[in-house]
């Protein structure tokens, strides 16, 4: 799942795959802005067939945390 997220992120910011880890903070480390973040969330919803509530993402800091959140959505 993390690879799906990192591949998407690489379409929005200039970064190499080796630099994206579970600890990467998309805002602090990649300068990903909220417009791009919403676009990525929309694409994840579309590609994975899940609904993501932005309010639940408020406290997520890293790609690893986003990965865990999405996995939990796919189980339910």
């Amino acid at each position, binding site marked *: 799942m993390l690879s799906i997220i990192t591949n998407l992120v690489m379409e929005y910011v200039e970064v190499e795959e080796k630099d994206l880890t579970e600890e990467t903070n998309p805002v602090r480390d990649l300068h990903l802005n*909220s*417009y791009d973040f919403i676009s990525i969330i*929309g694409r994840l*919803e579309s590609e994975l067939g899940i609904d993501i509530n932005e309010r639940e993402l408020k406290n997520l800091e890293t790609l690893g945390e986003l990965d865990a959140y999405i996995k939990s959505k796919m189980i339910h």
Partner: protein
Amino acid sequence: MIYLLRLLEKEKRSFEELKGLKKKLISYGLQREYGLSPEEIEASFSGALYLKKYPEIHLSTTGTKGLLGVALSPCPVGLDAEHRRPGDSFVEKKILGEKEAFWYRKAQDKDEALLKYFTLKEAYGKALGTGLSYDFRNTGFYFDEKGIKSDLKEAEFYFLDFCEEFIISLCFLDRRGKLSSEETVKFILP
């Protein structure tokens, strides 16, 4: 008042550098409007800047490719800027309510319209203090050459006519009596 800083360098800046520049903008505004020193600015763990000792001074910051902005105000304020870019169908689906989607489909410049909807909603979220963690599809906006209308009675919205490259939205909550209409959208480039 709104303070904008145009970044012309092509060199990529680090998060800390950008935060430092925002801090300088805030310092400039604090000194200019309130006579306060930069030491009053504090940063949260997530990097957000705020004025702990002066809850009566409201602060909002924004950053997009090529521009940094800061708003200082006596009432809750939200400032959001985005550089122009092509529309994004995923953003469209995520942020637009039913009526907005209707007006959006009729817009002559859809790329610009989407950025306007987005920055209005983000500016409102910043003024609320929630960012985009609110039900932004349920906030209805309509805008044309006469101005911006919304179903958020306590909020006032403006587009800042700064330069063609950026769409910038500003939101004030509970502005009456705290900020004159002359001061509302005044901006300055330090």
